[in-house]
């Protein structure tokens, strides 16, 4: 076992060394990972990108690209393309694998009037996830901060997070709804990965960012040829990252947090409420949203009950309910709650905004509400109806 200091030094040197592998070598990497991990990656399913178990290179979305616009998601297929990772994002990143949409927390059982609680911490095969983007990586850091680095640690999240192996992928294009450059989270991935891939036309550039990543890379080196990255390849990598950095959407270049927090009566909240369906999809696809509710599922014999938690949303009317009273009652308030928490109060709670620019809330909003557009109006220089 390496000491922390040593790991850090080693990690530093390893991130600086990067190699090239051929596209087919990725199959070998998958084989290696599948030996000790449950390996998941991007696949095409239900006309979108979903993370599911992968063992074969052919399961990856070769030649697919995504076209995302407000309230619109479409996959296009280019049979000539040799790229596996051209789809930027699907509706979900790594969140459902760690903070599960539904998870049993414990079971209570009753016998002769005595009750007993048993927690359901599972001991599953560690997860290796391939394909996370810079926005996902930044959001993962936010979820870690929320579930692991506060006063209380969440043992369920921790259980899935421990030994998570991350093969992150640099974006080589952006879709219309991306704005990670504007949030400072992309397109280039700089930390927290085990392995990082940059896809070039013919090869991948691969680099490791942790001791676990280095170990896998060392095994890979025994089975395929890791070549030194040529100047040409380095140039191509830069060009591809530059291409990904071309994004048309941005957040307003204004102190969003302060402005939002003091514009609670802005006319635009009403304007949004006319279009917003209060469906909560934005919160369901947001990679940093963490709200969840708890509930019981009793067995019919009433001797056993299973206690679950599931994703909740600040758009749900029960979210603000106590003893006969709803603190928030209408769509205007629901949307404002979401936006002000994410872009204003988050700063004081977690030291930064809760948005990593993935654009999912824009694409997956069935009413096509564009958060960057709304923020631009809410944060305009001369704004009337300000409280």
């Amino acid at each position: 076992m390496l000491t922390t200091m040593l790991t850090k030094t080693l990690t530093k040197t390893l991130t600086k060394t990067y190699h090239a592998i051929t596209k087919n070598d990725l199959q070998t990497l998958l084989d290696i990972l599948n030996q000790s991990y449950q390996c998941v990656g991007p696949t095409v399913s239900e006309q979108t990108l979903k993370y599911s178990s992968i063992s074969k290179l052919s399961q990856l979305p070769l030649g697919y690209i995504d076209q995302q616009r407000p309230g619109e998601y479409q996959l296009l297929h280019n049979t000539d393309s040799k790229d596996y990772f051209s789809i930027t994002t699907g509706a979900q990143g790594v969140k459902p694998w760690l903070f599960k949409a539904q998870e049993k927390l414990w079971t209570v059982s009753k016998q002769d009037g005595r009750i007993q609680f048993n927690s359901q911490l599972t001991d599953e095969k560690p997860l290796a996830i391939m394909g996370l983007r810079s926005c996902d990586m930044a959001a993962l850091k936010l979820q870690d901060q929320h579930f692991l680095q506060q006063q209380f640690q969440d043992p369920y999240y921790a259980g899935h997070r421990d030994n998570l192996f991350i093969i992150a992928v640099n974006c080589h294009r952006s879709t219309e709804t991306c704005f990670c450059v504007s949030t400072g989270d992309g397109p280039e991935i700089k930390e927290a990965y085990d392995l990082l891939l940059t896809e070039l036309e013919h090869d991948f550039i691969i680099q490791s960012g942790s001791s676990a990543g280095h170990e896998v890379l060392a095994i890979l080196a025994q089975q395929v040829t890791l070549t030194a990255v040529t100047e040409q390849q380095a140039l191509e990598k830069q060009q591809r990252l530059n291409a990904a950095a071309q994004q048309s959407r941005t957040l307003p270049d204004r102190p969003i947090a302060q402005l939002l927090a003091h514009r609670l009566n802005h006319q635009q909240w009403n304007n949004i409420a006319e279009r917003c369906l209060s469906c909560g999809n934005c919160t369901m696809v947001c990679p940093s949203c963490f709200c969840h509710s708890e509930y019981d599922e009793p067995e019919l014999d009433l001797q056993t009950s299973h206690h679950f938690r599931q994703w909740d949303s600040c758009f749900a009317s029960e979210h603000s309910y106590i003893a006969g009273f709803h603190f928030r009652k209408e769509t205007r308030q629901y949307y404002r709650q979401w936006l002000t928490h994410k872009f204003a109060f988050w700063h004081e709670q977690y030291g930064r905004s809760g948005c990593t620019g993935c654009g999912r809330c824009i694409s997956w909003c069935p009413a096509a509400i564009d958060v960057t557009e709304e923020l631009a109006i809410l944060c305009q220089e001369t704004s009337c109806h300000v409280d």
Partner: protein
Amino acid sequence: MLTNPYLPMVGEVLENHPETPDIFTLRLRLKEPALANNYSFEPGQFNMLYMPGVGEVPISIVSDPDDKHIIDHTIRAVGRVTRVLQKLKVGDETGIRGPYGSSWPMAQIKKKDVLIITGGLGCAPVVSVINYIVKRRADFGRLVIMQGVKHSNDLIWKDQYQQWAALENTQVALAANQTTPAWNWSSGYVTDLFDEVCFDSANSIAMLCGPEIMMSATIRELLQRGMTEAQIWLTMERNMQCAIGHCGHCQHGSQFVCKDGPVFNYPVVREWFFREGF
């Protein structure tokens, strides 16, 4: 191995005392001796009580922190879970997690005048403070208890208020919005009681509990009477499911009420307090 803050402990019902038809005090003891010995709380903190098959609910602790092995909760049976908790009998077992949240600043207020201002039924979160002060009377200055209820029949612990009123250097002022002839206290709102009570505003601490509209009006009165915002403490209520700052329901501005509160120094929450939709 992490301890699991989501997992309840087993609590045994020692007593279930009805206060009114829909308010009751549930006395619990932790079943596991090791857990019971480790359990300690401060006035103002709360527990999550769990009914098997039904659910969990946050309930503030009203007993004295020195009585290590009994934990009292005064509960109004208004919700899904509390109505079932009301049916518990002595010897029954139930789930309990806690204590959670912040507490009243008991250490900081020694020798000061303490104003306890409450509205609505019961106001269990401050009863523990009153009992705490009464038990350690010499440590504190003047004790002023102000309580407003909607209807004079709603007042619980009537005898207890009489007993407190009889204590040295203690004043009790009660107001009811609607009264019966038997009511020998004031009529009106709790804020109407300020003309009746006396305290040294420069050397006082106010502790507030009740609906936010009532606390908001009370804060205005206190500030007008020369108190500073920092002298005001209050306890807030929000939907809480996890009680450990994870589930997000109780987020209020930059606070989570369950772990940063429920007891707040007023300046901490002032900006978003009693704002519509927060």
